[in-house]
């Protein structure tokens, strides 16, 4: 009984994090982007600096009419937002926020994370194909191409950390983390974070969405609640990628003075800030530049990191 209760409490916390942190990241994006562009951003909703803007958006989405075009493949069209969103919720169960503070400590945790996150992109491919819209199909195929190119550097960089720690369990990786892993795994960290951004289709890797050329890519035909679910998936994805980068490369809950979960939260939001910063600073990469960056840039770097990790690990005993 106590065991079931323990798991139940952990699940409730995970769901709370899943429902709250993406909204915080979204609001942060509104405000940080606005200030970087010398604007104010939302100021009205909720009174204080527009803090309730995303809640107001949610209320609006709740009441919007749903439009499913006649050309669409209804069943796939209806399922796609769920396929895009749920993997990010499921992944959160293995991300540790403090010593012992993790949903479940799976011994193949890292592998589980990479496998489940790949499913999220399927939602975007399904949406693109089922919409019955040329622009959506183009966006969907671009999503697929992007997933394929960036999955490889992501997997290689992640396995470098697994080599360093000698385990695939995420809490196990954080426990064996030492401060000098920071320079040792730096290349892998950059590769992982960049490839993660590309998997989320965030700017500058937002070729699949490219609003100025293919409208909104796979999401063109979506309205109301289903569109909101896609948006939630994007921000949940930002949180998951930032959390994974902190866990694998920045030492998760390690840090002086403050308690572990606070450090974890700080690191996650520092990376969220970087994600927003990159969006404001860089223009969108063209499709061929995008593919080149993955195959000529990130994959060789990830291989160098693997070699470095192997040599240091074996020579240092």
């Amino acid at each position, binding site marked *: 009984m106590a065991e079931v209760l323990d*798991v139940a409490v952990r699940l409730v916390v995970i769901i709370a994090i899943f429902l709250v942190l993406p909204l915080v990241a979204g609001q942060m994006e509104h405000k940080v982007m606005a200030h970087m562009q010398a604007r104010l951003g939302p100021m009205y909703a909720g009174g204080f600096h527009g803090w309730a803007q995303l809640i107001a958006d949610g209320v609006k989405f709740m009441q919007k009419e749903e439009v499913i075009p006649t050309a669409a493949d209804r069943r796939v069209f209806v399922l796609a937002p769920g396929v895009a969103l749920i993997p990010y919720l499921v992944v959160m169960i293995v991300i540790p926020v403090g010593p012992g503070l993790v949903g479940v400590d799976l011994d193949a945790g890292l*592998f589980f994370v990479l496998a489940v996150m790949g499913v999220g992109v399927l939602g975007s491919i399904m949406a693109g194909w089922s919409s019955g819209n040329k622009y959506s199909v183009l966006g969907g195929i671009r999503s697929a191409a992007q997933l394929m190119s960036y999955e490889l550097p992501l997997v290689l960089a992640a396995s470098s950390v697994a080599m360093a720690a000698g385990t695939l369990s995420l809490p196990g990786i954080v426990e064996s983390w030492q401060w000098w892993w920071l320079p040792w795994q730096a290349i892998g960290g950059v590769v992982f974070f960049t490839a993660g951004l590309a998997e989320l289709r965030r700017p500058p890797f937002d070729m699949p969405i490219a609003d100025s050329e293919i409208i909104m890519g796979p999401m063109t035909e979506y309205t109301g609640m289903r569109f909101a679910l896609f948006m939630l998936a994007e921000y949940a994805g930002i949180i998951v990628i930032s959390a994974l980068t902190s866990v694998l490369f920045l030492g998760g809950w390690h840090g002086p003075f403050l308690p572990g979960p606070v450090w974890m939260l700080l690191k996650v939001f520092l990376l969220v800030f970087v994600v927003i910063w990159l969006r404001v600073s860089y223009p969108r990469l063209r499709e061929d530049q995008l593919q080149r960056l993955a195959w*000529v840039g990130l994959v060789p770097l990830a291989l160098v990191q693997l070699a470095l990790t192997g040599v240091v690990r074996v020579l240092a005993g």
Partner: protein
Amino acid sequence: MGGYFSSYAAVLVLFAIGLVIVAGALSVNRLLRPSRPTPEKLLTYECGVDPVGGDWAQSQVRYYVYTYLYVVFAVDAVFLFPWATIFAAPGFGMTTLAEMFVFLGFIALGILYGWRKRVLTWT
């Protein structure tokens, strides 16, 4: 159940909760939203003008090369994970390190081949 796979029970529960969250959000939407479809509203969206051209078109899909590259390399990369947990175990050391360089060599050679064949550049 029980044993090794019992730790995945919580994962399944969370997956079910995810389904409930999505279904719940969509049912609330169903209760609150209006529904007044018209043929124009259900037309495919192309920036406000009526859809141009038929639904079949041919285009050159350049991405299939990346699919090949991906299938080759990602399947290789999966084998890294079980190896990564034991490669530095006592008694392995140098042997597994040499193996790793063979493996990296194969992948690097593959990419080099693709690059020389100019599959990574667009005309």
